[in-house]
């Protein structure tokens, strides 16, 4: 297995790791310690962007791409006839230090296929993290994948070295998991997530009382969902995410547009990854986390899927047109956040700037508020900026009319029935 060169193994394992979306190095703030190297910065730092436009912040790598499980959606499934290889813990430590020192990365994101058993695999991951922290005195970011089914003691140890931990749910519903990942019952994923959430909460509480209390994953836990491999609608996905944020204190839920990595008959044949749908889900996710929306406001039984033509906030606003227009000089922060086109930063700047003067259209522009969509939903100093009647069907036409970029137009055509993939698989 190790007859391949380091370079070959590195690229093979990068290939296997790249479908994991998470790459953030945020949420943890640790100053460099004397005698050690590195630190973390709470906002995270991106170091470069690959040709697909995704950022590289961490060295994202698998320890091994051999796996005892056979999950249909996964490139590393046991039945996939691809060459298997591994890096030794020492090689990973060495690479991490060499890359980190040259400022290629903020740290390490280590995942792996499951080798022999969950406990054995978890021990290998911990060995890497422990060597980095204790021998190399590495203070940079470490994101460790938690192997479902690993012993609690091992999970606790992993969290002592890691800044962030994650377990990927991958499939949004029990039925899909049963079908595509028969080796992983849903409980085996949710249960350790719940346990992690408890450990993170306890450690946080104890550290508030004493700075000497041990850390446990100070940057929290995250997870990932694959979108488009199974027939769940957006409402199921967003409701699940909301539950994860609220009940498990999840830091991030990542959505990964399904890229077919096998010709398995249980999987849909998509013309390409559903990137626009993934984008809309992220927008909805942001509305949950930073804009005070709840999932039932965005999606309900009558609207189980996000509108591909409009961002979810615009869609919501058109269905609640009676709440508009809002006056930018008076509306409270929460109401400003609900105006399409006004983001967190714009809302904050409006609130700050209106203390000093009354805001008209000119002032808003100067503040950098993008009025393209917002103008239809606000008044500034009593004047409505939309220039048309405030009427939902009329606005819908205006807001969706110019298909400016060809790329997004193509995608609209690709996914007219994003929620109807069951028709493709025929099995669910």
């Amino acid at each position, binding site marked *: 297995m190790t007859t391949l060169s380091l370079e070959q193994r590195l*690229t093979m394992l990068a290939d296997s790791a790249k479908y994991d979306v998470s790459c953030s190095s945020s949420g943890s703030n640790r100053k460099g310690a004397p005698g050690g190297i590195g630190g973390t910065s709470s906002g995270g730092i991106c170091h*470069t962007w*690959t040709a697909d436009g995704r950022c590289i912040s961490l060295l994202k790598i698998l320890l091994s791409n051999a796996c005892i499980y056979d999950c249909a959606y996964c490139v590393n499934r046991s039945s996939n006839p691809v060459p298997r290889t591994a890096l030794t813990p020492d090689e990973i430590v060495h690479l991490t230090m060499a*890359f980190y*020192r040259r400022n290629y990365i903020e740290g390490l994101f280590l995942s792996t296929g499951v080798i022999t058993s969950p406990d054995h695999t978890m021990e290998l991951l911990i060995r890497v993290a422990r060597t980095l922290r204790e021998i190399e005195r590495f203070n940079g970011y470490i994101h460790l994948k938690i192997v479902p089914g690993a012993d609690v003691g091992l999970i606790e140890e992993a969290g002592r070295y890691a800044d962030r931990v994650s377990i990927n749910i991958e499939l949004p519903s029990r039925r899909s998991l049963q079908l595509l990942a028969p080796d992983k019952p849903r409980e085996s994923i949710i249960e350790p997530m719940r346990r992690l959430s408890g450990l993170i909460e306890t450690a946080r509480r104890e550290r508030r009382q004493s700075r000497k209390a041990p850390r446990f994953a100070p940057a929290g836990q995250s997870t990932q969902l694959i979108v488009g491999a199974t027939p769940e609608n957006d409402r199921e996905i967003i409701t699940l995410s909301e539950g994860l944020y609220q009940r498990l204190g999840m830091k991030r839920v990542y959505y990964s547009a399904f890229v077919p990595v096998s010709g398995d008959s249980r999987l849909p044949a998509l013309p390409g990854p559903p990137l626009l749908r993934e984008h809309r889900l992220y927008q909805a996710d942001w509305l949950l986390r930073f804009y005070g929306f709840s999932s039932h406001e965005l999606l309900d039984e009558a609207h189980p899927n996000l509108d591909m033509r409009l961002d979810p906030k615009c869609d919501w606003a058109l269905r609640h047109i009676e709440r508009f227009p809002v006056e930018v000089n008076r509306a409270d922060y929460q109401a400003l956040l609900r105006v399409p086109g006004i983001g967190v930063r714009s809302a904050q700047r409006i609130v700050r700037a209106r203390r000093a003067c009354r805001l008209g259209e000119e002032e808003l522009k100067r*503040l950098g508020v993008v009025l393209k969509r917002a103008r239809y939903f606000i008044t500034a100093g009593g004047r409505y900026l939309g220039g048309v009647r405030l009427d939902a069907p009329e606005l819908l036409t205006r807001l969706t009319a110019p298909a400016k970029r060809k790329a997004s137009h193509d995608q609209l055509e690709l996914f007219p029935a994003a929620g109807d993939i069951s028709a493709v698989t025929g099995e669910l």
Partner: protein
Amino acid sequence: MRRYRYDGSFEGYLCALSRCLAESVESPEFLCETLPEMSLFHELAVTVETDGEIANAFRQLFAATVSSSAFSTLRYAFCSEHIEIERLLWEYARLGFETGPRLGSMLADKRVNIVDRLARKVAGEAHRYKGFVRFREVEEGFLYASIEPEADIIRFIAPHFVQRVGDRPWMIHDLRRSRAAVYDRKNWRLLVDITLAEPPRFSEAEHECADLWRRYFRRLAIEARINPKLQQKLVPLRCRRHLVEFDES
């Protein structure tokens, strides 16, 4: 109209600014000694000596009258090297002394807005360069990085790298301004007029490491999602010359 000549440094500018405000000059002009084409007016200008104490006193007065975040806005904006930056900051500072802490919320005012925008741009670039600096190992252990940022951000990022790579001596070289932040494992200092006599010779390990990184970087892109336009927005072409992963040779 009155002309003030200063040495081009931020401290120097604060001294000139503080003198000009004390003399309540209307529409002053500031000349930077490092700009040779300005020498035509040199005879007519008042030369302001750079004095750390005066600069510091100005900082304290401004922070107390307006706010320390407004001072930091001023400092970042200065490093934008905008062609009219001295005049813009003079207006900003004068307004600040008139209005006090309220300056912070006057974002919709033209005079504040432009300074605020410049400051945010510089701060944004400084943050990006915390990611874009690429150290290359020259001799045993010595790390060298070259950058060509739009704004003069080196002083904002050097402390970050002291924290980050504190166990090695390093140098971050701004080729555009021929300046370098140099760290000797204890302190960092800013050196001016630094140019290399010959291109740095990298160690054997350096070539291997850069090569591994390049291969890793290329492999990490997902074929089905390739989007060079997006990539170019995030990593502008002008930055790529100094990023080993974009080095095609």
